[in-house]
């Protein structure tokens, strides 16, 4: 009976305690216990008086507590509450000063984790999310044509149609990048300039550093040619000559008037060395297929990108249908096919720059930074729990003396808050340093190749991010700390004299932390290993031939003048011959890829060789060549190379690689054998395939590895046909210079200008330059990742050891009891290793789906095969197993080494 009475009282008491939460914390700290006691006295009296009195009491107490509680909450705060907080702050500071190692370690771990998180967020925010630094930057958008998965410029005719009908954009402008040769033939310099609407500078509301910007008259047909220089070109080509404005320079051998210099950092719409106005009548007089441009615009007030996209899509589709209706034959068919898969994209410039994968990259990298922060939090949680264990008796005594739990929670919270704020301040400084370092690095190594808005530094968003991360960390640590303070059973602690009260619950917390740590580290290490492999491969990229002094570009022969194949054949032959005799040039090779091993375009047939299954036709890389194959380091093994006999209309011939011979002509003489290429066409993939003809093998060359670099489908199995027998519309020109890269560039420009002044100068790249930059970026990114993951690994190793050591240390007495009852050291070690192994297993199982996700992501974007991913996963798994088992074994050994008597008395 008594028991049931007590239970009722206990329940009602608990309910009343809950109701008392209506009062503010400072009030509860002082009076909640007294009120509860008073309520119990009233309750006992009411129960003696009968059920009605009891019901009345419950009703009035509920109403009274809620009403007065909220009155008290709304009442002005007592002066003392601020003083309590200040006392708590000073108390927490004293405690932290008393344990300098603990404070230092905690702040270091927190600053590392927070620093990485702040840095990653700020870096990606600037790269992708921040509005570009022009007036109304958040409303400035890039409008792109997307055909399938590729972005391409719009045809001028389509732009005119869209510009006329668009209501969701206030300004629409066009631009294109073009190569110019600056200076005369004795001191030429190739520059990458932007040809844009004259109003482009006014669109960005920019002001020049020197001179003036474009005016409407500058773009009139017949006006004097003008140019505006970028700060970088002004500095590097003209030595920052302040008298440059109004001077005349040679641009593509045309006298051009320098009218202004833009300020540092200006680079709209793309990184550019100079700006040239687009003639006003180009857009209105262009016919379909003549001119292509990129488009920028400003969203009308209140319009978002989605609405603009919806409108432009309709206008674009309508314009494309008109294009198709106005065209005929193959052109109309091509436009029709493209229309099915084409669309308009309206995005901010940063989003357009990073492409559709940008948000994914943003998410993945932020998740990684978040995971490292989580690791740091786990470590700090462990340290805080260890610390609260050390002070458990002190806390119990204070509870017994009447201190409220909320007050104790607040005191512990202040400790966490001080640590987090200190860690956050250092982390913000680290992030600011990292952002400045990235900025300096990109400026030193990538200037001229970067979007102009990529200027990193500690800006407002970085500071806000720092505040949010610190707040989130305080919240996470606060939950753990307050959980510990509220769960403490002080009677048990004081009776027992040890920290064992609540140890089962804490054991669960520690096990959860270990599992979380194992899962987090597994994912991070897996990511780190895969990133390292990718960086190594990119840094040591093998393009398949000796790239020293090799220059490359693609030239197109567009329009009516090259409608006839024989005209194209003559042009390609002339380009090859004229460039070959230029003094600055050594070897020249023209190349056009027409088939790849990876798809049907690479299919071929061998005469006199039965093909058992038509679905598995043999495939090879197929290229059309003209010129000197030694440009790519290829040598002749047998037979002959292409020569004047292999011109258009000559006998159909083919040269095969040694790898091809080894695979398909093993044991037989290859020369004189016949091969038919299934789809012998130099036109785009939308063209109907042209059936090939039987070609006679006239030569065998050394191997040249072809295919996309880093791709697993790279191979030296190749067929080469004479380029004059294909007469493609476009071809890659590969040539080696004799040591002067700039002179090599100018030699090609001069060749093209001599042969056809209407051909636009192409973008010529040096393999040395491209590979050096790629390698530099890969190595630098790898170093950055290495630092991050080394920190994560350090956190993981130290954290796992700390957690296991504390967990096992708390079980010293239990281990002693087991040993006293007859358990051998080996049994105890097996037991604890088994328990460590269970946590390890759970952690790994949790991490598996995440690791699979990381692996899939890598295989999608990088050349990481399933086998490499699996091997990396195994390596990571083995390392984690070793770390956790070692972290369990060391403290276990220590625990069993303690004298039995000491172990049994250990608190």
């Amino acid at each position: 009976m008594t028991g049931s009475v007590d239970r009722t009282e206990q329940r009602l008491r608990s309910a009343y305690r809950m109701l008392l939460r209506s009062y503010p914390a400072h009030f509860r700290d002082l009076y909640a216990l007294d009120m509860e006691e008073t309520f119990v006295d009233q309750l006992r009296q009411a129960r003696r008086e009968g059920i009605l009195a009891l019901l009345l009491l419950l009703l009035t107490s509920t109403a009274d507590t809620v009403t007065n509680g909220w009155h008290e909450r709304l009442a002005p705060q007592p002066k003392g509450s601020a003083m309590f907080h200040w006392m708590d702050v000073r108390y927490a500071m004293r405690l932290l000063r008393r344990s300098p190692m603990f404070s230092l370690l905690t702040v270091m771990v927190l600053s590392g984790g927070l620093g990485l998180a702040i840095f990653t967020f700020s870096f990606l925010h600037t790269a992708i999310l921040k509005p570009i630094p022009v007036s109304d930057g958040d409303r400035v958008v890039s409008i792109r044509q997307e055909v399938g998965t590729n972005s391409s410029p719009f045809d001028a005719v389509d732009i005119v149609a869209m510009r006329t009908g668009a209501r969701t954009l206030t300004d629409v402008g066009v631009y294109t990048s073009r190569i110019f040769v600056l200076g005369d033939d004795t001191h030429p310099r190739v520059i990458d300039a932007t040809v844009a609407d004259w109003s482009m500078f006014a669109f960005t509301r920019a002001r020049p550093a020197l001179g003036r910007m474009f005016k409407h008259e500058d773009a009139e047909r017949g006006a004097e040619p003008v140019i505006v220089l970028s700060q970088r070109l002004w500095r590097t080509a003209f030595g920052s000559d302040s008298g440059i404005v109004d001077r005349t320079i040679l641009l593509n051998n045309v006298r051009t008037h320098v009218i202004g210099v833009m300020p540092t950092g200006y680079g709209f719409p793309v990184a550019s060395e100079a700006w040239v106005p687009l003639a006003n009548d180009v857009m209105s007089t262009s016919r379909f297929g003549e001119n292509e441009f990129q488009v920028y615009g400003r969203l009308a007030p209140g319009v978002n990108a989605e609405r603009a996209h919806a409108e432009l899509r309709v206008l674009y589709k309508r314009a494309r249908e008109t294009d198709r209706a106005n065209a005929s034959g193959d052109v109309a068919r091509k436009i029709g096919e493209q229309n099915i898969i084409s669309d308009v994209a309206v995005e901010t410039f940063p989003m357009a720059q990073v492409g559709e994968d940008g948000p994914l990259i943003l998410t993945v990298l932020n998740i990684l930074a978040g995971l490292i922060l989580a690791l740091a939090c786990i470590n700090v949680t462990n340290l805080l729990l260890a610390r609260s264990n050390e002070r458990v008796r002190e806390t119990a005594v204070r509870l017994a003396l009447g201190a409220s739990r909320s007050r104790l929670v607040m005191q512990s919270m202040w400790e966490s808050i001080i640590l987090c704020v200190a860690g956050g301040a250092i982390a913000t400084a680290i992030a600011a340093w990292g952002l400045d370092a990235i900025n300096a690095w990109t400026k030193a190594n990538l200037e001229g190749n970067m979007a102009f808005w990529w200027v990193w530094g500690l800006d407002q968003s970085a500071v806000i991010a720092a505040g949010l991360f610190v707040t989130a960390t305080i919240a996470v640590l606060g939950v753990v700390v307050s959980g510990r303070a509220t769960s403490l059973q002080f009677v048990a602690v004081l009776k027992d004299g040890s920290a064992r009260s609540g140890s089962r619950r804490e054991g669960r917390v520690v096990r959860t932390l270990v599992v979380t740590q194992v899962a987090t580290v597994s994912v991070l290490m897996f990511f780190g290993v895969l990133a390292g492999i990718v960086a190594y491969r990119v840094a040591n990229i093998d393009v398949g031939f000796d790239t020293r002094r090799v220059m490359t570009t693609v030239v197109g022969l567009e329009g009516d003048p090259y409608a006839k194949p024989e005209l194209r054949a003559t042009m390609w032959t002339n380009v090859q011959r004229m460039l070959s005799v230029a003094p600055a040039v050594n070897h020249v090779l023209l190349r056009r890829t027409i088939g790849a091993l990876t798809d049907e375009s690479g299919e071929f047939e061998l005469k006199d060789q039965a093909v058992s299954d038509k679905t598995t036709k043999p495939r090879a890389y197929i290229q059309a060549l003209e010129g000197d194959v030694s440009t790519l380091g290829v040598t002749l093994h047998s037979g002959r190379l292409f020569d004047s006999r292999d011109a258009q209309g000559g006998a159909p011939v083919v040269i095969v690689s040694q790898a091809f011979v080894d695979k398909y002509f093993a044991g037989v003489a290859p020369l004189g054998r016949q091969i038919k290429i299934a789809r012998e066409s130099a036109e785009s993939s939308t063209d109907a395939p042209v059936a090939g003809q039987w070609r006679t093998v006239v030569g065998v060359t050394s191997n040249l590895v072809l295919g996309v670099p880093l791709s697993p489908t790279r191979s030296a199995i190749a067929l080469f046909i004479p380029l004059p027998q294909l007469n493609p519309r476009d071809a890659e020109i590969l040539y080696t210079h004799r040591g002067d890269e700039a002179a090599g560039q100018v030699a090609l420009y001069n060749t093209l200008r001599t042969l056809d002044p209407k051909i636009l100068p192409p973008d010529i790249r040096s393999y040395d330059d491209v590979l050096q930059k790629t390698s530099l970026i890969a190595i630098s990114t790898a170093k950055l990742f290495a630092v991050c993951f080394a920190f994560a690994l350090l956190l993981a190793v130290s954290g796992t050891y700390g957690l296991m050591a504390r967990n096992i240390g708390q079980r010293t007495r239990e281990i002693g009891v087991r040993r006293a009852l007859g358990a051998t050291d080996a049994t105890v070690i097996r037991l604890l290793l088994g328990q460590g192994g269970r946590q390890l297993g759970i952690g790994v199982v949790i991490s598996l789906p995440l690791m699979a996700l990381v692996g899939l992501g890598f295989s999608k974007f990088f050349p990481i095969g399933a086998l490499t991913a699996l091997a990396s996963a195994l390596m990571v798994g083995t390392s984690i197993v070793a770390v956790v088992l070692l972290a369990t074994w060391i403290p276990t050994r220590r625990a069993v080494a303690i004298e039995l008597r000491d172990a049994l008395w250990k608190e």
Partner: protein
Amino acid sequence: MTPSVVSPEAHPPLRPVEFEILLTLANGERHGYAILQEIAERSRGELQPETGTMYRALRRLVEGGLVRPAARKTAREDDDERRRYYAITALGARVATAEADRMARLVATARLARLLPHTGS
């Protein structure tokens, strides 16, 4: 806690429940339930403050330095449960006296105005 007001004259007028608490504590230390009971008995059941009302009044009196929390002790010898006792401070006694004087003067004024009958000599 530091008393916010040190002079009884400077203290704001007491609310009825506050005066009742001071009157109760003037007879000695009491715990919360005892205070409630005594107020109810003294007023013959006319005044029965709720627990919350009383503790909020106690909070104001403690902050004003008129009452102080005393040690926790058992209510009866045969009882294990310890209760928080409250005691009136010297300032509280002076403020209660001042309030009683004020009320006495009011009563005297009411008698002079014949709102109350004269009693005694």
